[in-house]
């Protein structure tokens, strides 16, 4: 980093950007390696060391106390006090300091406003003022635009330019190409915890996208040609909000036929999660329809959707897929424990559960000490196999797998992939959502790319991955207007992608 430089750190979610910066801010301790400031190695025991060394950070999730005022938040940890040991707060001086800093960098904030009453854009400004009052030379902005509206993003870029003019260095973490090109002086691309390249902002979006998504060897999946049958899942005009009531899925149409695998690719946070949760009845459908084999299933309870013949591998197995404290056998019947042969009246049939567990542990090659071991003691790959075994043990019409191999070892990946293909070959409609492009390309017969809550294109599996990478970055040959919208922030106009589609990009969550 050089003084007065804006250095963009570009990478997919989970690439390790935030972790790197948390180390730099002293929140995490490095296992190896060192940090150099002005040529000298720096040991950071905690954030206060980082602040002392002139490093400030604006976290993706704001570090502001919601019930405190702006001034209180800014003075915390570096309080101006009077009265010796009693330590009375000198609010007047603190307020003056806030006013002074916000004046100097043109960051208007009301020093007496309470944080929880402020919109996120202003809260972020408070965070920046907080760092600036501590006299930092290097400011780390972790995904600062993830929660901002387009106009707030525009203001932020202006602020960053003025900070740069004042000689501050900025590390700008993001996965949005347009913003990087608009503001960065230098770009470092990170993938899977490694620096995979550096670039200048003049580099084309295609090059950056390629660096970000990667060119690693395809995972080969043995499969024959698909024989697609009747449409099984039909989604039309689907609109869904995320947890913050921000539009996440914005008019998605798609069809999955019996006997084919539809892969859904996309940078995480572009509505894939919400799309699937809406199909499963886990999230309200605001508009549009979902049909399974001709029956409308939108508005159904999840249990009814499952009973209708839908298998579901949720994207976060530890939260949604398994009860970690329960045994493997119990987890294998979580969906049908109340049906014969496993349940009779009010009672469970432990013997039936045990017998079937034994069979399935063998069939799906689950490596466990016993069927009674808590599932949480298994490795990630074996946990995932338990879920897959559970879901594939029922006759299915539709099988939805979200991130089926995240955090899973290579051996288990192969096994799970072959199981997915086998399910396709017996005529089930399969939908695979993954942020691993290789996985999608390997499994899918057709690939739908999601961007900002919409399907931006549907392509075949033999499409060059660079082209898919571009689609994931929102650049499609037939959506020139989108490209304009994305590149536009530099001159403050937005030609397309009105409110809803922009909001779709704002539901990023890396925590």
């Amino acid at each position, binding site marked *: 980093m050089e003084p007065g430089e804006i250095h963009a750190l570009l990478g997919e979610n989970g690439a390790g950007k935030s972790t790197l910066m948390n180390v730099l801010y002293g*929140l995490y301790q490095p296992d190896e390696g060192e940090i150099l400031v002005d040529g000298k190695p720096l040991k950071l025991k*905690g954030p206060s060391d980082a602040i002392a060394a002139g490093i400030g950070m604006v976290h993706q999730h704001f*570090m502001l106390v919601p019930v405190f005022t702006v001034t209180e938040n800014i003075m915390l940890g570096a309080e101006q006090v009077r009265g010796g040991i009693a330590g009375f707060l000198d609010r007047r001086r603190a307020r003056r300091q806030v006013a002074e800093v916000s004046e100097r960098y043109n960051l208007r904030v009301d020093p007496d406003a309470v944080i929880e009453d402020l919109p996120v854009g202003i809260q972020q400004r408070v965070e920046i003022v907080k760092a600036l009052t501590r006299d930092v030379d290097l400011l780390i902005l972790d995904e600062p635009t993830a929660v901002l509206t387009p106009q707030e993003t525009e203001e932020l870029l202006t602020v960053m330019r003025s900070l740069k003019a004042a000689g501050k260095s900025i590390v700008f973490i993001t996965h949005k190409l347009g913003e990087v090109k608009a503001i960065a002086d230098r770009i470092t691309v990170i993938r899977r915890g490694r620096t995979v390249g550096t670039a200048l902002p003049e580099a084309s979006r295609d090059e950056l996208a390629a660096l970000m998504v990667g060119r690693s060897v395809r995972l080969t999946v043995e499969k024959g040609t698909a024989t697609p049958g009747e449409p099984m899942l039909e989604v039309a005009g689907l609109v869904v909000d995320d947890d913050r009531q921000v539009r996440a899925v914005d008019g998605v149409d798609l069809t999955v036929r019996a006997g084919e695998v539809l892969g859904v690719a996309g940078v995480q946070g572009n509505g894939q999660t919400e799309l699937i949760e809406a199909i499963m009845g886990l999230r309200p459908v605001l508009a549009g329809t979902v049909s399974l084999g001709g029956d409308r299933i939108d508005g159904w309870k999840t249990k009814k959707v499952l009973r209708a013949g839908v298998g579901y591998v949720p994207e976060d197995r530890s939260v949604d897929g398994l009860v970690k404290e329960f045994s493997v056998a119990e987890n294998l019947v979580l969906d049908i424990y109340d049906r014969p042969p496993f349940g009779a009246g009010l009672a469970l049939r432990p013997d039936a559960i045990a017998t079937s567990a034994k069979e399935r542990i063998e069939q799906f090659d689950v490596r466990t000490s016993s069927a009674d071991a808590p599932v949480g003691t298994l490795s990630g790959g074996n946990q995932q196999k338990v879920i897959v075994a559970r879901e594939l043990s029922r006759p299915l019409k539709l099988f939805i797998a979200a991130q089926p191999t995240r955090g899973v070892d290579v051996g288990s990946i192969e096994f799970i992939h072959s199981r997915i293909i086998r399910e396709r070959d017996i005529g089930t409609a399969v939908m695979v959502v993954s942020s691993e492009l290789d996985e999608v390309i390997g499994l899918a017969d057709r690939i739908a790319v999601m961007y900002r809550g919409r399907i931006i294109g549907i392509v075949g599996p033999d499409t060059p991955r660079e082209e898919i990478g571009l689609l994931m970055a929102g650049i499609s040959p037939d959506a020139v207007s989108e490209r304009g919208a994305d590149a536009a922030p530099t001159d403050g106009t937005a030609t397309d992608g009105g409110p809803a589609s922009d909001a779709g990009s704002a539901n990023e969550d890396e925590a």
Partner: protein
Amino acid sequence: MSTMAVPDVAVAPVDAGFWTRNRKVGLVLLALGLLAAVLFGALATDQQARFTLSDDAAGAALEINGTIGAILFGIIAIAAGAALLAGVPKRWFLTVLGVGLVGFVLSFLCWQVSAAPTGQNFMPLVNIIRGTFILALPLIFGALAGVLCERSGVVNVAIEGQLLMGAFSGALFGSLSGSVWVGLVAAAIGGAFISLLLAVFAIRYLVDQVVIGIVLNLLAVGVTGFLYERLMQTDATKYNSAPRFGNWNIPLLEDIPVLGPALFRGNIFLYLGLLLVLVIHIGLFRTRWGLRTRSVGEHPTAADTLGVKVLRVRYRNVLLAGVVAGIGGASYTLALYSFTKNMIGGKGFIALAALIFGRWNPTGALLAALFFGFADQLATYLGAINSVIPSQFLAMLPYLATILAVAGLVGRVRAPAADGKPYIKG
């Protein structure tokens, strides 16, 4: 293109329509006022209800005809309820509500006092006020201990145990040394000892804070009960005859009518309790310590990123809470009674209720404690005049009030956001 619509992510406040919370409260108050004016008015007698400005029936008194008083004060409550129903400015809400509730209570008292057996138609105000404060005192100390602890994010269910341990060590070491001051220090250390266990288990070992709090209460009952039987009962003169703080009359202030004799002829604990409310209130909202304490209780991660030592702040506050509660326990054994088994008898839990009712605020906790103390004192008084109201009804009042408070009927009750959540770095 600056006119382009921006997605509105801000959540619009829920429009409650006409029936805002304040109006609902007004309706309830109106109903209470009607009940007072009609029922209390009908039950009251034509006797004079005398509120004497002394300890007994003698001296100057405020007098009112029982029936008239009951109806009149009932009407005040009705008026206040009607005002709230019609809608008053926000900043007047609490004042009007207070006037209404006082009206209701006075109406009730007019009925009770006038209906008392002849010769007992008086209420000695000095006595009542002093009794209220004495009964509220352990609650004040306990609730302050709760404030100190919970504002930093550690739930303090162990107030009962801290009070009890304070009372015990105060009695034991006060007796052994023959000095009230040694007893006082020992009481503080005793309370801090329970706090230390709470802190270590809650902060270091991440044990569920409510569970460890309850366990510590049981521990305190067990340990003090055992030692009471083994030591104090065998040789009470040696182990359980602590000297007591006498009353200190404050010059000038003690001459204020009613309040002087009620409040300024008390013992050190009364003064200390009131002083602590003030000190902790100022400390919490005006000093660096307070700002850091509150930040750690609300958003420890944010505090950590600014270099505040979250765990250190929590340890310190939990220990301080033990000191305060320990002294509160000594307000029994170094001023009023000798130690008996389980002598706190649930006051620690009522203190917890006062803490919640007072919205985690020292001044609020004081008012809540006084309210509960008044209910307690009133129960005693009503028993003395053979009232038809069973004293158990008044004993229920703290819990009832707390349920209403938690249900949000008297304003938004919001605990510190990180209360009860252990802080794990990273």
